[in-house]
């Protein structure tokens, strides 16, 4: 009986440790751009927060645009030029531990002459066009 209790306690400890290790994964939040962000500007803002001393690489449509070394606040902001139509913004972070995380967001640049009021319908049409 004692042995059984011991094994159970040990198992619980292992599970707890694994849980802590999983939770200790380094964090990264990409605040901007939001998914399916639509703009008429020639650039988008890329901003977020992560742990200090992380390296952040910003890519637009797979092309590397900028590398930022994040300071003690963990905050970063930059801007990346985009083309007309669909653009994929990829942010690759390399944590101080060497671990990596990649987040991608689709953004759409429209011509300035377009009426922004009907953006939602335009983006749907654009998405359908791209999917086809």
């Amino acid at each position, binding site marked *: 009986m004692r042995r059984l209790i011991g094994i159970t306690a040990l198992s619980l400890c292992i599970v707890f440790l694994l849980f802590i290790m999983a939770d200790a994964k380094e964090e990264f939040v990409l605040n901007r751009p939001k998914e399916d962000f639509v703009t008429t500007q020639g650039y988008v803002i890329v901003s977020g927060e992560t742990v200090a001393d992380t390296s952040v690489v910003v890519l637009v449509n797979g092309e590397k645009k900028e590398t930022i070394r994040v*300071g003690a606040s963990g905050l*970063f*902001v930059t801007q990346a030029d985009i083309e007309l139509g669909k653009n994929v913004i990829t942010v690759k972070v390399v944590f101080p531990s060497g671990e990596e995380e990649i987040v991608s967001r689709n953004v759409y640049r429209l011509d300035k002459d377009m009426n922004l009021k009907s953006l939602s319908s335009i983006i749907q049409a654009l998405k359908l066009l791209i999917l086809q």
Partner: protein
Amino acid sequence: MKNRDSFLVLLLVALVGTSLFLSGITWWRLYSENGDVQAEVSALSVVDLADVITPDRVVLHFGQDMHSVLYPDTPFYGEAWDFARKILHGKELVEVKNANLDDENLRQKVGMELFFPVPLPVDFLTKVFNMNVGQQAIPHERLVNSVTMIEEDGLSVFFKGSDGKFYGLKNRQSSFELKQLLERARRENLSVYIYLPPAKINVEFEEGIYVPVSTMQDDLPVLAFKHEKTPSQSTIAQFFPDFSATRKIEEKDGAVVYTDGNRGIRIYPNGAIEYSRPLPRELKAGSDFYEALKIAVNFINTHGGWPNDVYLSGYKVVQNQRTSYTFNFGIRINGLPLLSQSEYLTVTVEENQVSRYFRNIVKENKVLYKIQPISPIQALDTAIAIYNLKGITSLELSYLISEDTLIPVWTIESHSGRIFINAKNGEAINF
């Protein structure tokens, strides 16, 4: 005869020279004391309370995550504030119940938000803007942080309360003028800002912040400063009903005290003045925030003049046997608040009477040189790295007195106190 003519010519030249010299001195003095003269002249006009509560900053929302932050000395600030005052004037304010409004949603719309330097009672604002409260009573103690105007099938206007409640104009206005104003501002190529939401990974940052997208920000001057001139006899006389009945006492530290036995005024060697007048216990007139602030501002205006770039930076209301309102007024340098450990302008109003007045105005004298301020993120990085901060409540660009100069600094408020980072080089400043 010739000698006499020569003598007269010389005398004439000497007289003309002396006359020119004296006129020059007079004009030079007038020029150097221009600020003080302006303050004295302002005493002749009435100060509008809306000019006392001018917003610390106006945030323009252009949509598509694009914003601009306007400080009191930047272009379009005055236009935006005048527009807000015009829109609010004479309108009916109602409480917005079950408001489905959140900051993120409001920020994404086209519009602008004006942040007051200090939360203000809602009934005070309705009086300042001459608004109607209608039949729906709004509790007097409710405080308002900002005014938001957004384009949403017309113009929607909200007062945002400290408690998260919203008050709105009963009737929707036309958004035509707002859109025009924003379009003009957009064409001016103002600095673009991005909103960073509250941080929580590396540091807890309660408020979100607006940060400039470009690393190149507008230059800020480092300035020499001077204190206000020592008050003239005529200004001192205004504090007493009968100045001939006052005694003058010169103290060892160089201060001069005038008293009539009831009230007194101390004039410090640097020109600061402190007036006090204890009120009789039985005096009970009753006053509200609006009336008390009006009395305080009028008192300042008639006792030394209303200085430029002064605003209501804080207040304390104490309710004992009678209600006492202490108003603190701050100074803005280049549109940014000038921080200090001492007070600049304080008035205490009790029962419609001023019981204490302290005035020690600092003015910019001349620009020494200009600096390119570091970004707010750089300032945060430095502060967190040096002081190992875990929680931050606010971050703002301001001015600080450092030795004989006024320098731009990033002020970071944390739960453990205030930290100043030199905006020029990112060095922490002991203050």
